[in-house]
């Protein structure tokens, strides 16, 4: 089928119209800022007026962080669990340092898994994320229980299930952001 000339999309930005179409460099700022900002904003969602009777809102910062790590290995350095986790602690209401520790441990365990299971598909990544999400949430409850009185672990079950089911969506969002990040 012959494609009419009018349907071919022309570059809309006037400044780029006369630039070279190939061998462009990605913006370094965009490449660095998009993963960092997306995890930070996801951590801050809990500051919006969302009220739940029990812990129900998934830990969106953790979901975003795990998706970036599992979808794009090598992008986030091994130590990045510490700064991202500490930032999440500022907003989550947990004792300060709890996510810093747990996210970093999650990061190190993915690093160990990476050395064992090299070729993985999406389902296996989802399984790894599910185990880590449940581990981090239960660990968070245990840590909160050290500092304060803590409720029964059974209150976490709905939140764990919801978070595991939301992981594929978080990967989709990361993939969209990633293609924007690497676009020239």
């Amino acid at each position, binding site marked *: 089928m012959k494609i009419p000339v009018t349907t071919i999309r022309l570059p809309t930005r006037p400044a780029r119209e006369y630039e070279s179409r190939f061998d462009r460099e990605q913006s370094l700022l965009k490449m660095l800022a998009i993963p960092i900002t997306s995890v930070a904003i996801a951590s801050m969602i809990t500051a919006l007026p969302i009220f739940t009777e029990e812990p129900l809102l998934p830990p969106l910062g953790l979901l975003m962080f795990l998706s970036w790590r599992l979808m794009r290995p*090598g992008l986030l350095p091994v130590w990045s669990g510490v700064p991202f986790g500490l930032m999440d602690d500022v907003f989550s209401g947990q004792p*300060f340092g709890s996510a810093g520790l747990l996210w970093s441990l999650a990061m190190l365990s993915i690093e160990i898994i990476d050395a064992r299971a090299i070729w993985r598909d999406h389902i296996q990544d989802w399984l790894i994320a599910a185990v880590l999400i449940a581990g981090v949430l239960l660990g968070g409850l245990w840590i909160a229980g050290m500092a304060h009185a803590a409720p029964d672990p059974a209150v976490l079950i709905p939140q764990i299930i919801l978070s595991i089911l939301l992981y594929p969506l978080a990967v989709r969002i990361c993939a969209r952001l990633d293609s924007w990040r690497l676009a020239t």
Partner: protein
Amino acid sequence: MAPPKHRRPGFSRKAQYGLFVTYVVAIAGTMVSALLLAISVADPAGFSALRTAGAEITAPVARMFSNVRRSAQNMNATAAAYINAGSQNAALQKQAKVNRKKLIEAQALRVENARLRGLLKLSEDGESQVAVGRLISSTSSSTRRVATLSIGRNFGVERAQPVRGPSGLIGRVIETGPTTARILLVTDAENLVPVMRASDGLPAFSAGLGNGTVLIKPLNLGESPFKVGDVIVTSGNGGLYPPNIPFARVIKKTSDGALAIPYADPGNTPYAVVIRPYQGEARAAQQAVAPDGETKEVAE
């Protein structure tokens, strides 16, 4: 996806050391986090400055969304009121007739109460209000039940002040910032509230369960005296929460107490009133004369 190539740096010494350093930094960072955690477990109020700063930064966005949410709710209520106007009018008129009688009785009781108080030379201040704000966010992904209030030290909010809504007790202030304050809700497992049954003043304690309900435990031993539907109010014991604030309704009787749902729903309360601690001055004076050991007045 397979791990990228830089995991196996080959013969380059620089790349090998670079990879090694990232692992060293990761392990060191984990240990530093564990240390920070140990500090915050030992002193829960230690990092409150950081949390307050976080709340202050996000407060403008939270206020905006809170306003949007409130106007949407108002719109719903207005539309519903138009649809229900006729039937509601009839129901309300019937209710008003009943209430008029009760109101006269209550007036008589108030006069009698004042006379009896005068005889006993009892003087009791009513609850005095510090400021009125709104709840703008809550820790909905953590097991801790803490909410953020839209006002802080700028309106004279201080730690250990009780907070109530129009329908009942919400919690107490645990941290204050310049324009926000953090409130420990009554459903948090750490929040113990001295309460009583409204009908006969049976004294009890309430502890949050972290899932939207509270556990009411009576002080006296034996079988649980509660019935489904019992109304629980604060008792004023301990001098923090003023007495007779509506607290919760019993929904289930257990072997040693009862499960109850608090009247104040933090997600649905139009405003939150910060009130002065009940008998706070008396308690402070008592502490000044005979401090009871290392106990802080209200820790987080």
